[in-house]
């Protein structure tokens, strides 16, 4: 049974996406600079990815019924969450320094996008 997702609930999900993306960007930054351990990156990125999956599930169309006027915002949040989850999966696979630097940039941009979305609600 889909749950109605109001602006407050959507804002919390957007903030969760921002948090996961920003933290992923920090980890990716350390990978690119060789300032971490591969075990930590693998385990922590996996845990962050599971949290991202939870957000994706909450925002999925069969789970969330957007309150009036929020359909587009929910769709944007869902797409962002899926994209962050995919980036975290890439991070878990221990990318090269160059790939990690690029991943960091992507995750930072997604954190900014999630922040803007949260602020617009």
């Amino acid at each position: 049974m889909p749950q109605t997702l109001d602006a407050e609930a959507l804002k919390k999900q957007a903030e969760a996406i921002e948090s996961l993306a920003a933290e992923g960007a920090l980890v990716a930054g350390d990978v690119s600079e060789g300032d971490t351990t591969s075990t930590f990156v693998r385990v922590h990125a996996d845990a962050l990815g599971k949290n991202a999956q939870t957000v994706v599930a909450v925002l999925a169309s069969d789970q969330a019924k957007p309150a009036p006027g929020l359909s587009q915002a929910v769709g944007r949040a869902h797409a962002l969450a899926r994209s962050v989850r995919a980036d975290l999966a890439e991070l878990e696979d221990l990318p090269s320094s160059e790939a990690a630097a690029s991943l960091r940039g992507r995750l930072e941009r997604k954190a900014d996008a999630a922040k803007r979305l949260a602020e617009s609600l």
Partner: protein
Amino acid sequence: MKRIFEVALGILAAIGGFVDIGDIVFNTAAGATFGYGLLWVVVLGVGGIITYSEMCGRVAAVSKQPVFDAVRERLGLGTGLVALVAAQIVNLMTLAAEVGGIALVLQLLSGLPYRALILLGVLALAVVIWVLPFGWIERVFGYVGLCLLVFAVAAIKLHPDWGEVAKGFVPHVSTESPLVYGYFAVGLLGAAMTPYEVYFYSSGAVEEGWTPKDLGINKANAIIGYGLGGFLSFALMITAGALFLPLGIEPELLGTVALGAEIPLGQIGLILALVGTLFAVGGAAIDTCFSGAYNLAQFLGWEWGKYRGGAGAPRFTITWLVLLALGFCIVMTGIDPIMLTEYSVIFSVVALPFTYIPILLTANDKSHMGRYANGRVANTLGIFYLLVILAVSLSAIPLMLLTNMGQG
């Protein structure tokens, strides 16, 4: 020189006992949510644990009476039983959370499967408790737990706004989200004054054979040891406030806490943070395990004490083994240790008065304590903190429900 050495060891033990998974989680989450705005609550909590640890250490040194002897004597059998059940439930929740925390840190270090590491962690704890003498348990976990000082270096390297940090030590209330702020304030007080700390502290004083001659050591241990524990709490909160808050990061994982040391200090910061957390949480697991066994044995009048060995105190030994097994079973259900920690801290706040009222009454009883009974300063502080404890114990559950565990 021997005295100085004893104080130093006591200080290390106090650090190991003070900073557990509850402190690590709550201080980091508070810093990431309110920046430095809750530093004053840590000061308040550290003052409370110093006040009551000094009292219960003094009672143990003078009368050889640990906390749950006092609870039964002062509260009577009926209310004492309620206190015992409440204390044991909170203890078990805390123990399970610490065991889960050990497995999480081991996983971040080794990459091995979480459930296998729960089993490994519990077996390692059982062996350590069985084999090592009491003093060595304190020293090993206290010394290595000092690796957590890496967060103090991390906090400095992150260049926080020290003016804002200083403002955080001035008591105030957030007007932005007062309920969430209140929830974190209650949680920080609960984490600082967790009852198992005084159960362990007073029983440990009896285990180590303290006499009135050791009252100076008791005072130094309580003030400097818990003061240093509070210093580590400041470091965690400042690190989170400087690093996570500006980026909108909501720390929900132990790995996030370690990241606070990795970002400014690199790989060495990460390793020190993880090893320090492992030993602080491991030390706390042993403290809670013993505390549960101490409480039951003292309440029922059994022989107790690690120094007596398994054969000298069989029911005490069986109790800590059973508690360890129960903690293992709880974590193996798959419950999130971080969430369990938050529940255990909030429920421990509710149980605080049952622990601290009997300590205050006993330490203030001149017929019991003679010339070592509370003076004016100890009584004033004791009553002040009792009022604080009563206020937070009444507000803990409502705040938890109203804020959805601090989520707003």
